């Protein structure tokens, strides 16, 4: 048995091969070290890591429900404060638990200003239950509850802007990251842990099973999301964007066409109109966050 003492997240967990969320678990514990208490919401991560009695977590870990990790974390933080203990408190949940069903507890905990870090591993749908749409599902992605079909082009709502929403709650530190850039993930989590008050880090965690690509491409897909501007890596401090990952942008097709969830945009024939809408989302992101790397040449943003 791999008794690897530096590795706080154990092998033997049940994630799909190539799971982005599993990598989040590992990076998270790398950032926190052992003096942490993790509160996990129901979802893939909880399910693949904690069938009784085989927990993969070597730090204190608790799961209660799908909707309440922020509230459980609030209670832990209060107890630690009362007991004079110094562990950091981290709540982690998937996008479903974070964007949707957990919003009540999340909004409440941020409003109250507890000192904890909330991590959302964002695989852009409810994966554990079989790939249903969440508030984080991108525009036009086909899921089992937003299927592409004769009268549907997939999910018809834009991705909810949770970082902005939590920044509007007065969160001192809000950041986005991607497992495609592991050290950036670790750095941002560390920064969140060391910032007093409720902090939020949303980590893009591609899901081979749910998005429809081969497991080996997990990081590659994550990179493409950033390179096309459909995912922006940034930091916000006290509501102000302070750091953005700049890129030389690629057209969104290069990201979309790699994934089954967008296949209906290409087959039976290319749906240029919808792809243009998605391109517009990327363009808006780029503009809003100023992600475009100005090349030395004066040709402007490299959007074809």
């Amino acid at each position: 048995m791999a008794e690897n003492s530096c590795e706080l997240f154990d092998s033997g967990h049940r994630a799909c091969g190539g799971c982005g969320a599993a990598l989040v678990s590992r990076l998270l514990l790398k950032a926190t070290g052992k003096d942490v208490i993790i509160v996990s919401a129901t979802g893939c991560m909880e399910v693949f890591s904690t069938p009784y009695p085989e927990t993969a977590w070597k730090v204190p870990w608790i799961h209660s429900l799908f909707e309440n990790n922020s509230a459980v974390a609030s209670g832990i933080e209060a107890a630690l404060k009362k007991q004079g203990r110094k562990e950091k408190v981290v709540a982690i949940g998937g996008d479903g638990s974070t964007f949707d069903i957990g919003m009540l507890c999340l909004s409440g905990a941020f409003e109250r200003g507890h000192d904890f870090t909330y991590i959302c591993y964002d695989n852009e749908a409810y994966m554990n239950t079989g790939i249903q749409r969440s508030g984080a599902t991108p525009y036009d992605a086909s899921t089992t509850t937003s299927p592409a079909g004769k009268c549907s082009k997939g999910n018809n709502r834009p991705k909810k802007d949770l970082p902005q929403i939590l920044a509007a709650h007065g969160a001192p530190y809000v950041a986005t990251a991607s497992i495609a850039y592991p050290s950036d993930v670790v750095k941002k989590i560390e920064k969140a842990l060391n910032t007093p008050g409720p902090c939020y880090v949303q980590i893009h965690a591609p899901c081979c099973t749910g998005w429809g690509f081969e497991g080996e491409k997990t990081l590659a897909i994550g990179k493409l999301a950033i390179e096309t501007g459909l995912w922006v890596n940034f930091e916000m401090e006290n509501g102000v964007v302070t750091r953005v990952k700049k890129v030389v942008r690629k057209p969104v097709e290069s990201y979309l066409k790699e994934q089954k969830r967008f296949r209906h945009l290409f087959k039976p024939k290319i749906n240029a109109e919808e792809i243009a809408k998605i391109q517009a989302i990327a363009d808006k992101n780029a503009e809003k966050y100023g992600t475009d790397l100005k090349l030395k040449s004066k040709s402007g943003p490299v959007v074809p």
Partner: protein
Amino acid sequence: MLEITEGSHAVAKAVKMSRPQVIAAYPITPQTHIVETLADMVANGELDAEYITVESEFSALSACIGASAAGSRTYSATTSQGLALMFEVCFNVSGMRLPIVMTIANRALGAPLSIWNDQQDSISLRDCGWIQFYAEDNQEATDLHYIAYKVAESVEVLLPAFVCFDGFILSHTYEPVDMLSQEDVDRYLPAYKPFQKLDSDDPISMGMYATPEYYLEFRYEHDQAMKRAKDVISKAGKEFGEMFGRDYSALVEGYRLEDADTAIVAMGSLCGTIKDSIDEMRLAGKKVGLLKIRCFRPFPAEEIRNALSHVKRVAVLDKNVSIGAKGAVAIEVRDALYGKTMPVLGYILGLGGRDVRISDIKNIISLAESGKGDQFYGLRTEVL
């Protein structure tokens, strides 16, 4: 010391003296006076606890999960819609075996919305694996909090507990209550020592999921813990009696029951009115007695069977209804008495704050004597 005080204040004082370290609660009538008093104690430095003003009952009890799992003695209070909103969390707390104590200021459940008293709220959570106490008066309501913590935290039990008392009828009533001193409470209920906790020096995973290989056994263990709680309650109640003169060792209590022909079974504040009614009826030569159920979970089936074996008929009063069936207490009392032959009749009354008077109790006894029961009592037929 005997002092006259509002029920809610008495409860808040008892909670304070139980030294909870974390309190998370959400206001809802008629629980508000309890949590307001606690907030005030914290604001004035009389109670050294973290008081979390959550945004909902769902979070209130969820925060309690976190605090309890992190090793703090934890308290909440709610009622009605608030308790209903906690339903999922309640099953969670008990399955995680966290000894949280929560006061329920019993109130009706909507729709239609009602802020007034009945016991539908806690009764409808009878499956959820919490101990359930029901108080007859504010003395009992107060004392039961100490007992609840003691039982809940016992290693043989490790279960959460509701202390239920009738909203408004008790919570908003001033009456004399013998309050223990802090020293007394500390002697009875020592500082909290969690059985296990979230701790980076000794990490555990809590609240894991159970595959079909294990689930049944976890539920069995939960049920066994509840059954063990019976003895633990008796012991804790006896100890309380020995220390402070009020014995709570019995899960059910008889009143003039020994020679009764007709037994009334009831829970909560109704018992007071019933006792007065019984005294009057006894004067009129009717042999009526009361069996009060103080602890509804664990359900004291044997105790009920023993206490009622000699009576000619039983009238069970329910301040709740399982729509499409009967009152929950009536159903379980009949289950407990299965095999007996005396009539056991149920009466659903007092829902949503409908007042219950001595004359009502007398009417019900008449109905029971004439074999009529299993019905709603006290309907204003003119509005139907």
